[in-house]
């Protein structure tokens, strides 16, 4: 990717999608042939409540430009309340990330139901554009390079 200029640069987003809502929505977006930016790399989990903050930090440390979490709408969790646990962790994590000097827009949580293929498309496009505005993440470089 070294020869790509910033205009063409496409961010890499690690996306954690819950099996029941957002992953299904991304299938629906596929079936409906909704075009969106090829930035996401989806990791399927059963519930957004499974998402450990460590996963998010690992993703950033290994070079993700953004992390997107997709879960069921409040009240709609397939497991009753996993999405609330996710939201609480996310809210705390946002504060931590900000303190760590990371643009909070690099981490995003969205509720996308199984029927919202269109929303998935919009969210991915929007986040991709935002990340293009912010530019490539330097987190990996900072983590790997001890400055003397």
């Amino acid at each position, binding site marked *: 990717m070294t020869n790509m200029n910033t205009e063409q640069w496409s961010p890499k987003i690690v996306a954690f999608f819950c099996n029941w809502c957002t992953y299904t929505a991304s299938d629906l977006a596929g079936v409906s042939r909704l075009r969106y930016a090829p930035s996401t790399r989806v990791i399927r989990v059963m519930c957004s409540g499974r998402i*450990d*903050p*460590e996963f*998010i*930090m*690992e993703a*950033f*440390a290994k070079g993700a430009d953004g992390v997107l979490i997709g879960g069921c709408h*409040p009240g709609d969790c397939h497991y009753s309340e996993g999405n*609330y*646990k996710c*939201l*609480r*962790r996310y*809210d*705390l*994590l946002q*504060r*931590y990330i900000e*303190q*760590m*000097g*990371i643009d909070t827009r690099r981490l995003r949580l969205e509720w996308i139901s199984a029927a919202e293929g269109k929303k998935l498309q919009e969210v991915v496009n929007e986040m991709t554009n935002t990340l293009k505005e912010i530019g490539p993440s*330097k*987190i990996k470089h*900072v*983590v790997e390079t*001890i*400055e*003397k």
Partner: protein
Amino acid sequence: MGNDKPKLKLAVYWGAACGGCCVSVLDVHEKLFDVVANADLVFWPIALDVKYKDVEEMPDQHIDVTLFNGAVRNSENEHIAKLLRQKTKIMIAYGSCAHMGGIPGLANFSTKEELYKRVYEDSESTENAQKVYPQTETTIAEGKLTLPNFYKDVCTLDQIVDVDYYLPGCPPQTERLVEVFMAVVTGAELPPKGSVIGAGSKVQCDECKREKVNKSGITRFYRTWEKEDDGKTCLNEQGFLCMGPATRNGCGVRCVEGNAPCRGCYGPLDGIPDPGAKMMSAIASMLNEKEEGDIQKALDTVVDPAGTFYRFSLPGSILRRKQS
């Protein structure tokens, strides 16, 4: 213990540290006699007059055990860490700072420039009209003076050299040190390289005597002076931020026994790369609120999350330091 066996050669060194670790070594009290009976202290800047040059002259692998305490903060720390590594059979990261970065590691929230400005210009007790900052080399009439280079990042020991074992704590429990020492002396089978030794294999709560009520979730957090501890209920359930659920035991739950929340100096259990992340996950999970606004309000009572959850472990955590 027979005297025919050659005595162990022991070194203790401090990097970026407060000295507490060295004191903890002294805290062996009368056991020191056992130690001295079995070991020769070949290098210990705080207690012995041994020069770096003497160490440099030692053959490789000359020292049996080095207890390296303190983080690596400057070129001198790094130089000695590498030197000792070369001369030592068993390199032990001793104490939280060498293990995970420790309190000095909190400097990774700031840049070197910010730190210098604070220390050499802004601090209340400083008069420095000429804005003189430390230089690695200064030439004066008598010749050249040097200072170690102050690094931009604080590092854990294992980010600089290969470490055999970790002995956690701020400071480590002296009893644990004696146990480890005796194990080495008696030639007991040592755990696999890279292990944390002199500590437990579960987290703090395992030994904690406080009760779990498990009634309802937390709606806000308190700092210790904001509310009276009832003395018996789990501190987290009372809303005090206790790092116990994500912190390795072995200290004997020292802080909670003294009615203070655990601050996490023993670090995480094996296989957990980031104790702060784990603790954040556990703490946030305990919250009761569902509405975004209520959650934010509850989280407002967590003052300085990064500093709280990474008090001892920032340089050793996944993200390591603040982005600048």
